[in-house]
C-alpha cells in the first residue's frame, strides 16, 4: 500500500526530520573528533604512554592538584553557596556575578592575572613567599589556577543543590528540637549532598582539563595538559596523542560517574 500513506507521513514528520538532522550534525561534530583520536592511538602506543615516566608523573600531578583544588574550592565554596542560596544580604547579587566571572575570562588572561596577583613582587605573592609558599612556577600555582577556573562551577552546583532543599524542612527539624547546625547536618546536608558531590566532581574534571592559565603560571612541573601541548609543539601530533588519549579516558571516566550521580540529585 501505502506509497501515498508514507508520503503523507513523511511530509507530516518533516519538521521533526529537520530537527533530528541538525541535532545529528552537532552530535557527530562532538563525537567524531574524539572517536577519531581514540582510534588513532594503537594499543602499543597507549601501553608505551602508560609506561612513560614523564606521562605518569604528569597524570599523577594533575590528579593530585585537581583534587587539592577541588578540596580547597569546596572548603571555601560550599559555605558561600549556602549563603547565596539561603540568605539575602547587601551585595548578594554582586557576589553572585563575581563568582560567575571566571567563566567569561579567556584562560591565558586568567593566568596572567594570577601571575600578577601571586607573583613574588606582588603583596600577596610576597607574603606567601615569606611564609615559604612559592606559588608561581611551583605546584601551588597549578592549584591556584585550577581553583580560579573550577570553583565557580562548584559554587553554582552546590548553590543549586541547597536551593532544591525546602527551607521549611529545616524549620520542621528546629521545632522537633534541632539546633540550627544539627538541623543542617541531619536534613539539608544529606539532601543536598549528592548534588554537591556531583558539582565537586564536575569542578574536579574542569581542573583536570585546565590548560590556558596553568601554562602561564606554572609551566614546570607539567600537568598532563601542559605535557601534551609540550609534546605536540616539540615532537608533533603522533607523539602527543597517546598521552592525550590517556587524559581523554580519565575525563570520560569522570564524566560517566557524574552522569550516574546527577539524575538522582535532580529527582
Amino acid at each position: 500500500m501505502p506509497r501515498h500513506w508514507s508520503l503523507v507521513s513523511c511530509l507530516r514528520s518533516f519538521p521533526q526530520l529537520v530537527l533530528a538532522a541538525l541535532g545529528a550534525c552537532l552530535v557527530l561534530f562532538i563525537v567524531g573528533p574524539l572517536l577519531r583520536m581514540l582510534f588513532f592511538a594503537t594499543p602499543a602506543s597507549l601501553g608505551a604512554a602508560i609506561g612513560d615516566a614523564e606521562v605518569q608523573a604528569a597524570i599523577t600531578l594533575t590528579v593530585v592538584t585537581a583534587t587539592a583544588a577541588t578540596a580547597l574550592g569546596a572548603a571555601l565554596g560550599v559555605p558561600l553557596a549556602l549563603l547565596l542560596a539561603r540568605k539575602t544580604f547587601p551585595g548578594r547579587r554582586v557576589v553572585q556575578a563575581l563568582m560567575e566571572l571566571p567563566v567569561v575570562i579567556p584562560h591565558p588572561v586568567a593566568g596572567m592575572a594570577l601571575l600578577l596577583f601571586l607573583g613574588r613582587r606582588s603583596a600577596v605573592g610576597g607574603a606567601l613567599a615569606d611564609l615559604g609558599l612559592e606559588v608561581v612556577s611551583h605546584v601551588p600555582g597549578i592549584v591556584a589556577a585550577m581553583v580560579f577556573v573550577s570553583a565557580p562551577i562548584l559554587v553554582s552546583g552546590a548553590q543549586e543543590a541547597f536551593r532544591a532543599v525546602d527551607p521549611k524542612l529545616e524549620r520542621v527539624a528546629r521545632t522537633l528540637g534541632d539546633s540550627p547546625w544539627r538541623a543542617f547536618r541531619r536534613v539539608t546536608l544529606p539532601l543536598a549532598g549528592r548534588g554537591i558531590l556531583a558539582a565537586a566532581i564536575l569542578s574536579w574534571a574542569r581542573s583536570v582539563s585546565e590548560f590556558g592559565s596553568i601554562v602561564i603560571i606554572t609551566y614546570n612541573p607539567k600537568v598532563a595538559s601542559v605535557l601534551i601541548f609540550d609534546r605536540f609543539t616539540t615532537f608533533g601530533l603522533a607523539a602527543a596523542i597517546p598521552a592525550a588519549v590517556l587524559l581523554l579516558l580519565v575525563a570520560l571516566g569522570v564524566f560517566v560517574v557524574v552522569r550516574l550521580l546527577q539524575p538522582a540529585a535532580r529527582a
Partner: protein
Amino acid sequence: MIELDGLTVQVGRFHLREVSLRVPTGGYALVIGPTGSGKTTLLEAIAGHVKVRAGRVLLHGQDVATTPPEERGLGFVYQQYHLFPHLSVRDNIAYGLANGRADRPAERAARADELADALGLTHLLDRGIHDLSGGEQQRVALARALAPRPRILLLDEPFASVDPTTRHLLRREVRQLHDSEGITTLQVTHDFDEALRLGDLVAVLADGRIAQSGTPEQVFRYPNSAFVAQFVGTGNVLGGRIVRTDENGRERARTDEVQFAARFICEPLELDVVAEREGPAHAVIRPEDIVVSRMELPSSARNQMAATIVRLERVGPVTQVHLDVGRPLVAAVTSASADEMQLAPGASVTIAFKATAIHLL
C-alpha cells in the same frame, strides 16, 4: 497557653499588625482567613521562625522573644507535610525523639509505635515516604510533630491537601488526639466549616489583623464587620449537644457511620435532627429553610414552635425576620409574603423547619 500581645511581623509581603490572641491551656483555637491574610506567618512567628518586630509571644506565661524554636516545645505541621524525603516513615516519626530528651532508644521506639498505631500507620513504618498518599503523609507529619510530646501544636491548613473523605476522618482523629494528649492547639484554615467543627475559639484574620475573635457561634452569629459576615456567611448557629433517640429500638455501634435520628439539645430548644454522631455540636440552619406562619402549621415538619418577631429587615425582595424562640433565630421570607401575613415586631408566629434542614457540624 498561647498568648499573643500586639504581635507585629513583616515577612516579604506578609504583614501581621498588632495581633492579640489568647488560647487557654488545652484549648483548640482556629484562625481563619482568606489566602494571603498572614496565617502561616502567624504560626511561624509563634514557632520562632520569623523575626517579631513588635509585641510579644508568651507560651505558658513565658515571653519567648529570645527562645530559639527548638526550645519552645511545640509541634508544627505544614500544609504540604514537609516530611524528610531521605528518611523512612519510622525515622520521620522518631526524628524529634533523637534529641536526648531523656528518652532511651526503647522508649523512643515505643513512642513511635504508639503514634503509628494511633494514626493507623503501623503497616507503613518501614516504607519510604515517596509512595504514601496525601492522607498518609499528613498522618506521618502529625505523628512526627506529636512524638516529642509538645505542649503546643501548630497546624497550618492541615486538611487542605487531602480528599474530602480523608479530611473528615483526619479532623476527627486530630480532635481526638488533641483531647487525649491535652495539647494546646492553634490551627489556621481558610474554611469556616472547619472552625465550627473543631474550634473552641475562632479568630478571623484579615489583612494581617484579627478582625474578630470569639466562640464559633459568636463569630458566626454576630459578625462585627462586613468582611467577617461575608467570609463566614450568614445564618443561624446554635451550640448544643446531640442525643440519640432510640426510636427504632436498636442500638448501633458508636463508630457506625450511618445517620440516625437524634435530638439536638440547646436550651430551651430541643430539635429533631438527623445526626452522624453524638456529643457537643453546632447546628446551622439557613434562614430560608425556616417557614414562618401566622397559624399553626399542618406541615409534616417536625420542628415546630411559637416565636415572637423582634424586628424585620427588608432587603429588596427578601425580608429577614429576626425571631425570639428563647434563642435568637433569623428566618427569610419573600417581602411579598411578609406583607401578606402582616408581619410586624411583637407579633406571634409559628415557625417550622425540617430535621434535614439542620446542618450539624
